């Protein structure tokens, strides 16, 4: 999960009060944020452009400027440090992805400024015309204009990071939505959102001020193009935003143009969000613009002309949802008074109005993309009220506990095995084909559960027997004194196309003895004793199995079918696991679990 580093100084400035770091951390945690740690951020000055690059105190100093790309192999000069709180981003609350949104929430939670925040918008002149051709490719676009205090390195980076985080949190890595931010002074409206053939035109992509590329070339050569090419794979037309001079602003969702890039000193921004999900583009724009407002921006609307309608964006009006007081009391388990109820919600930056008896209208700001049901308001209520004030108690209803049959039988078998001097081991369910099939001499017949995308070959197959785990354990302990006697109780998974999940699960017990005298008689005696204690009888039949020595292997069954295999392991299997003593092994199917 991405982590965002929030400057304590900056956060306090935006809150408008000076709070010690510990108090901020505590308040953020009570709001539900996942505070990773608090560390110092060191700032390094780029010798070429003077931009401040930051690194955590635990990281090595920077050698490459993130603004101008300057790199000369030496670590830049450190000139300042800043205390930061590092927070894991919460996918459900993208409005808390940046310092502005966090400051706003803290102002509410700390009782500095409660209730529904108001966001002023003014009407802008800029219009965006949507070409019908693009509607099949990436059909949604919303835009805004922003007047900001002249950008410096910090605010520029702030905006870049928020953009990146929203791509992760809402955009599903630019698939659902992606954001473009431009220097508005370089653009002449109206802007056209259109689609072009991959080789039909050229522009200067960001980072390549001297090289024009076609959209197709960008996907092949530009690092961002290569990284996100799959989002446009197979499309006839690639999305393009251009101004009325024909200058390209960007090729969503891949890259902006070099000409329109934001720079130090830029005061006017144009913002677009395009995507394939209407909710995602609207949420992204609302969170970005309300975040910018917290940082001192003034937002102007943009008129977007679709072929069949015109809309004015952003729309930062609050939304509302009806909430029943009694429902809230039941859900949280606290008998809230009306003032407690109202105050708790206002602390969470929500508007509260009693509509009729017991029914409240709760208004929530446009950036709260997470609210889809009254229970979302209940959660805010509990947070605003304080989890620590809620008295934990048990459900008064009486119920009877009961355990599963396979656990009952396993506990009996565990007692027997421990009583007979076998040590219990546990091994892993996932295994490599080599250890689970090849080394056991089993045929590679695909008659097992196969994982399609494991990170390593050691997780390629779900075990269908316990033998490989037991042998791996013996291998790990081969330097210890023999004889060794071990057992494992676990589930194995076997294919069965009749089942809903295509599989059955069984509880098995597997046990082995290794040592110079290990032999069939010993494990057979143990198997007999388990069967006797469980009240089972089995028919022993001489059989062959590729893992066992011929003539020293039996299969055991009863009226319900297969029960157990027992015998002396084949020298090939023993040596495949680098072991040097005879091994007697038995595996017994105790019960069908699923």
């Amino acid at each position, binding site marked *: 999960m991405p982590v965002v580093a929030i400057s304590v100084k900056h956060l306090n400035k935006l809150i408008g009060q000076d709070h010690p770091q510990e108090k901020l951390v505590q308040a953020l*945690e009570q709001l*539900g944020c*996942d505070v990773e740690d608090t560390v110092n951020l060191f700032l390094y000055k780029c010798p070429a452009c003077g931009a401040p690059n930051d690194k955590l105190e635990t990281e090595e100093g920077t050698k490459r400027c993130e603004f101008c790309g300057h790199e000369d192999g030496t670590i830049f000069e450190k000139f300042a440090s800043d205390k930061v709180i590092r927070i894991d981003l919460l*996918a459900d609350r993208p409005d808390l992805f940046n310092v502005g949104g966090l400051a706003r929430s803290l102002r509410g939670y700390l009782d500095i400024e409660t209730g529904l925040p108001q966001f002023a918008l003014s009407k802008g002149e800029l219009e965006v015309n949507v070409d019908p051709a693009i509607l099949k490719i990436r059909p949604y676009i919303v835009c805004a204009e922003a007047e900001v205090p002249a950008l410096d390195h910090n605010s520029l980076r702030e905006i870049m990071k928020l953009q990146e985080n929203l791509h992760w949190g809402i955009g599903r890595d630019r698939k659902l939505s992606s954001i473009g931010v431009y220097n508005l002074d370089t653009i002449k409206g109206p802007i056209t959102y259109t689609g072009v053939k991959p080789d039909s035109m050229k522009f200067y992509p960001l980072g390549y001020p001297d090289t024009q590329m076609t959209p197709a070339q960008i996907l092949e050569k530009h690092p961002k193009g290569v990284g996100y090419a799959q989002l446009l794979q197979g499309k006839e037309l690639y999305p393009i935003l251009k101004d009325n001079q024909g200058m390209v602003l960007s090729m969503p969702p891949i890259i902006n143009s070099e000409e329109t890039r934001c720079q130090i000193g830029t005061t006017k921004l144009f913002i677009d969000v395009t995507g394939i*999900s*209407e*909710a995602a583009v609207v949420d992204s724009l609302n969170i970005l613009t309300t975040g910018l407002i917290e940082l001192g921006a003034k937002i102007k609307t943009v008129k977007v002309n679709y072929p069949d309608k015109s809309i004015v964006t952003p729309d930062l009006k609050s939304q509302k949802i009806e909430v029943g007081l009694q429902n809230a009391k*039941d*859900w*949280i*388990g*606290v008998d809230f008074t009306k003032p407690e109820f109202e105050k708790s919600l206002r602390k969470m930056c929500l508007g509260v109005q009693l509509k009729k008896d017991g029914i409240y209208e709760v208004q929530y700001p446009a950036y709260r993309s997470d609210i*889809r*049901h009254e*229970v979302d308001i*209940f959660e805010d209520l*509990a*947070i605003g009220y304080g*989890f*620590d004030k*809620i008295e*934990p*108690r*048990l*459900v*008064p*209803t009486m*119920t*009877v*506990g*009961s355990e*599963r049959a*396979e656990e009952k039988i396993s506990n009996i078998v565990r007692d027997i095995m*421990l009583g007979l*001097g*076998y*040590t*219990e*081991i*546990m091994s892993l*369910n996932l295994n490599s084909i080599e250890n689970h099939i090849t080394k056991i001499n089993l045929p590679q017949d695909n008659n097992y*559960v*196969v*994982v*399609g*995308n*494991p*990170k390593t070959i*050691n*997780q390629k197959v*779900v075990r269908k027997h316990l033998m490989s785990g037991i042998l791996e354990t013996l291998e*790990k302990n081969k330097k*210890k004194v023999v004889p*060794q006697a*071990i057992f494992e109780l676990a589930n194995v*998974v076997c294919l069965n196309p009749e089942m*809903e*999940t*295509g599989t059955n699960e069984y509880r098995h017990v597997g046990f082995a003895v290794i040592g110079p005298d290990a032999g069939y008689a010993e494990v057979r005696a143990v198997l007999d004793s388990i069967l006797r204690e469980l009240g089972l009888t089995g028919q022993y039949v001489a059989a062959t199995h590729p893992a066992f020595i011929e003539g020293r292997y039996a299969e055991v069954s009863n009226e319900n079918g297969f029960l157990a295999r027992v015998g002396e392991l084949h020298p090939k299997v023993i040596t495949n696991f680098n072991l040097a003593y005879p091994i007697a092994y038995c595996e017994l199917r105790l019960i069908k*679990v699923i």
Partner: protein
Amino acid sequence: MAITINDHQWLILKTLIKAQEFLTQDQLISRNHLDNAIVSATFLYGQEKGWLEIREIAREELILTETAASQIAKGFPERQVLSYLVAQKKVPIKEFVTYLKDKDLQLNDIIKWGTLRNWITKDKGEIIITTAGKNAVDQEADDEKALKVAIPEGSIFLDELDKSINLENVKNLLKNRNSVVKIKARTLRLAKITSKGLKELQEDKIKIVQEKNILTSEDLLSGNWQNIKLRHYDVKLEAEKVYPVKINLMQKIIQQTRNAFLEMGFEEIVSSQVESSFWDFDALFQPQDHPARDMQDTFYLENPAKAKLPSKDIINKVKATHENGGDTGSTGWGYKWNEEKAKEMILRTHTTAASIREIAKNPNPPRKVFCVGKVFRNEAISYKHLPEFFQIDGIVIDKNASLATLLGTIKEFYRKMGFEKIKFKPSFFPYTEPSVEIFVYMESKQKWIELGGAGVFRPEVTRPFGCNVPVLAWGFGLERLAMLRYGLKDIRELYWSDFDKIKEVALCQ
């Protein structure tokens, strides 16, 4: 009052009374045909009672190795070459080596021991015989004399050697000759009767009982046990270490967890490790493009690749809930739900899949159920992460269920697991509202440790399955708990099953 003494001890004490002088342990052993242990025990007992005066003399014993006798008979290597060197007076090393080869001797040995004895010197590539060397030809060295005396018994105390032998010399020459002999420090114990002993130990005042080491079945059957005294042990002596075979450490945590919920009136349930995306994600209102469903984190199966889905009715309800909220009172996620994607087979990412299956099976309150099972995350094995781990999942379906009762249930569970101090922090999970994270206070570490997540299921999760009361839900990983309990730093140790480690970790922790 008569003094009770066992028969063996009385023999020893009687010998000492008669002798009225210091006798060694060995003397007492040979005179009374008793073993060392009895004599030692009598010395201790007599000293304690004030009957005996014990004197200890430090001694050194030469103990010959098995091959010592043959080596001594052949003569040490440096002696074997002595007459040759006397004849040569000096010999170049190269030539000497050739000579040694024939005799199967090592140059290093000759130089090491020959110079230690001061028989030879080495100068400019030549070996030269010394005067002492010449003299030694027909004269036995002190160590050689001592060893010869020791051969019959295989050992001898230095103080038993003839006075003409210089003991310092013997020790110096033999202390590093480990292939022949070892010099061991011993203590010689002697005892003498005291005046108190003489006064108290008069035959008519003594009651003698038979002492034995072993109580036999015969003693018990014949009634002879009444006449015998069983020898006292030194009960403070360290015993040999033995270990019980044990339940696996991880298994112990699992069983403890199960028992805690069973005691709290929970019914145990199970679900398949191999699961459909439908039950693992869709039924829990996780949108189909949610990052948690990413290939990065989830094991997708090649075989079997597709699951059978539940009834059309359930599918339609879940589909509607995702798309527009259906009749759950929600707005839904606002996207087109894809049935094929729900069929994709995976390894379950959480045991919450078991909980939601159980709700679908029987949504009627009151119910309390739990499930312990393996869950899977597509990660490489490291000291911090395993691609599979145990999770305990539980739900409470009850008209009185609320956030407050969720906190109470979890608090009670962790109290049963041995954590008295617990705190809750708000959190965010996609299928619960509100959501909490649980922290317990570890006294041993003096800090708060995060141990799991919980929440009240969103109505979008429960209502499509006909459940209309709040459902409390939680999922806790168990490996972390086990690592804390056993002080492990590496999660892999839980599944390494190192037999020595299993032996040594105590059951009560």
